[in-house]
């Protein structure tokens, strides 16, 4: 009953509209909640992030606006709205104006194919995952537009870093998703979630609970962190090196739009991670299936967001060469092994054998790759000729 409350509400509202405009109203009623819920979640996340980071650094974090600082995003929004919108004189005005708009539009589109709950999906595409990645690639364009049109060396550097990083990390991101697509046999997000429904004992049939799925999920989340330009992969922004990267020349509300776009991108990719590996809106335990499906989706999303914040509060920023080495020399081979391992899992008979084979394959690959990474990272002891 509560599970389908939003779907029923939509149908009930649709019943009041004349038949001629029903398709248009239906689309509107589907899009509107997405346009409302995720920006609100963004506002919540900013305050959660600032408070969380504060606590990690033994500070209070924002605690002035409203009850325990919960209204801080309102103050931030007002501030960014009242700020002057400065466009550099030599900037390409049209492109400079369009970049945040395109980023925002592109940031909202992936939510169309994310199943937020049972029967709660805006567009059930047969190639939903493909659509997701195709749209995700456009955000690189808007980032580069912003960096290029600002006519600023720092922003161009930031944009080039961003594009290099996003393209590099898209490969392991896609490869780890391919493992899931292979296992599910479908590109449709709804189908992938349905394949993960059901329980063996108390364990749900989530792909993260298989050896290849677990490694795939970790790789996916690392690549997602890089893809959304979040710390420790926030080189495109790199406050201490290139000031603010590609949005250095954006102020006021345009800057806020970039911010919103980044966070929406983070939610979308977390949503895809949930859909692919964490069973979408499925309950984690069999006796919890009475809880509405959309609550599970948002609970998992919140969990991943907290993970992102935790990682941000822990790790320092990578260097550019470390970033690229990690992508091409560790993530990519590991993702390929995940694909092979998922194939082995698919064709071996159910039982202990496939667990052993799959785990062994991944463990050996991890061991070898880790040795490679660590041998490169060894720094020789510095010797001095005269200063001993």
């Amino acid at each position, binding site marked *: 009953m509560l599970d389908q409350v939003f779907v029923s509400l939509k149908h009930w509202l649709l019943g009041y509209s004349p038949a001629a405009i029903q398709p248009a109203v239906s689309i509107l009623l589907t899009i509107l909640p997405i346009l409302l819920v995720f920006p609100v979640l963004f506002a919540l996340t900013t305050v959660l992030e600032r408070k*969380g980071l504060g*606590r*990690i*650094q*033994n*500070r*209070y974090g924002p*605690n002035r606006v409203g009850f325990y600082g919960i209204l801080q995003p309102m103050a931030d929004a007002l501030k960014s709205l009242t700020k002057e919108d400065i466009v550099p004189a030599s900037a390409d005005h049209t492109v400079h104006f369009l970049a945040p708009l395109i980023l925002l539009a592109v940031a909202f589109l992936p939510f169309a194919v994310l199943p937020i709950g049972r029967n709660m999906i805006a567009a059930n595409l047969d190639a939903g995952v493909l659509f997701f990645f195709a749209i995700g690639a456009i955000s690189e364009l808007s980032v580069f537009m912003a960096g290029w049109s600002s006519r600023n060396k720092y922003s161009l550097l930031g944009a080039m870093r961003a594009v290099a990083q996003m393209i590099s990390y898209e490969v392991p991101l896609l490869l780890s998703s391919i493992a899931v697509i292979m296992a599910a046999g479908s590109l449709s997000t709804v189908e992938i979630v349905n394949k993960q429904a059901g329980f063996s004992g108390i364990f749900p049939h989530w792909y993260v609970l298989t050896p290849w799925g677990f490694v795939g999920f970790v790789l996916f989340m690392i690549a997602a962190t890089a893809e959304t330009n979040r710390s420790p992969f926030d080189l495109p922004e790199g406050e201490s090196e290139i000031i603010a990267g590609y949005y250095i020349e954006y102020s006021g509300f345009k800057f806020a739009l970039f911010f919103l776009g980044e966070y929406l991108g983070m939610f979308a990719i977390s949503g895809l991670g949930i859909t692919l590996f964490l069973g979408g809106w499925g309950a984690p335990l069999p006796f919890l299936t009475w809880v509405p499906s959309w609550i599970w989706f948002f609970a998992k999303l919140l969990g991943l967001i907290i993970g992102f914040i*935790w*990682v941000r*509060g*822990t*790790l320092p920023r990578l260097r550019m060469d470390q970033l690229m080495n990690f992508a091409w020399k560790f993530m990519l081979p590991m993702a390929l092994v995940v694909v092979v391992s998922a194939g082995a899992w698919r064709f071996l008979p159910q039982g202990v054998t496939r667990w052993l084979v799959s785990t062994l394959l991944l463990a050996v690959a*991890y061991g070898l*790759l*880790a040795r490679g*990474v*660590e041998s490169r990272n060894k720094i020789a002891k510095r010797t001095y000729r005269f200063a001993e």
Partner: protein
Amino acid sequence: MLGLGILKGLVETARNFLGSYIDKERLVTVQFPEERLPVAEAARNFPFLIYDGVDPEQGLRCVACQICEKECPPRCITIEKSKDKKPDFVGKQQFYPAVFDIDVSVCMSCQICVEVCPFDAIRMDNEFELSTTDRFGGLLWTKEKLARPNEHYEAIHPTEAAEVEARRAEEKAQADAKKQPSTVTQ
């Protein structure tokens, strides 16, 4: 093992996160307007004029010699000398400032005015919340606003004030000793 360091780091930050809720001692920040750290004795921000006694107009130590006005590097001090004179602490007739203005927005807290003052009349205050909503009038501090009693000086810079007080007492004693014979002959 690759990745172990990251896990250790995550545990460390989680401990900090949870610890900050349990142990208040961990929180290093001071919640400023409500909580304040004690101000150091040597702290200085903006000059003030010292007056003795209770009446700021009568007890003002400044004799309008205008040395500080001339020495001030950013030229934030404006002084107009009075036409008449009034007695200072030893009884000598001195000019006094008819106008003594300091522009808060120009002052750079260098303390040069304090160093050059031969009358111990101007000293640095440690008050630092000088912002105002009145951009034109509020930033120009007049004689009335600058005047602070000597007790305030003794409260904020006790060591320095004691030294100044001792010197001034000695000067006054010398001046009184000079006057004494004349009163005797009368």
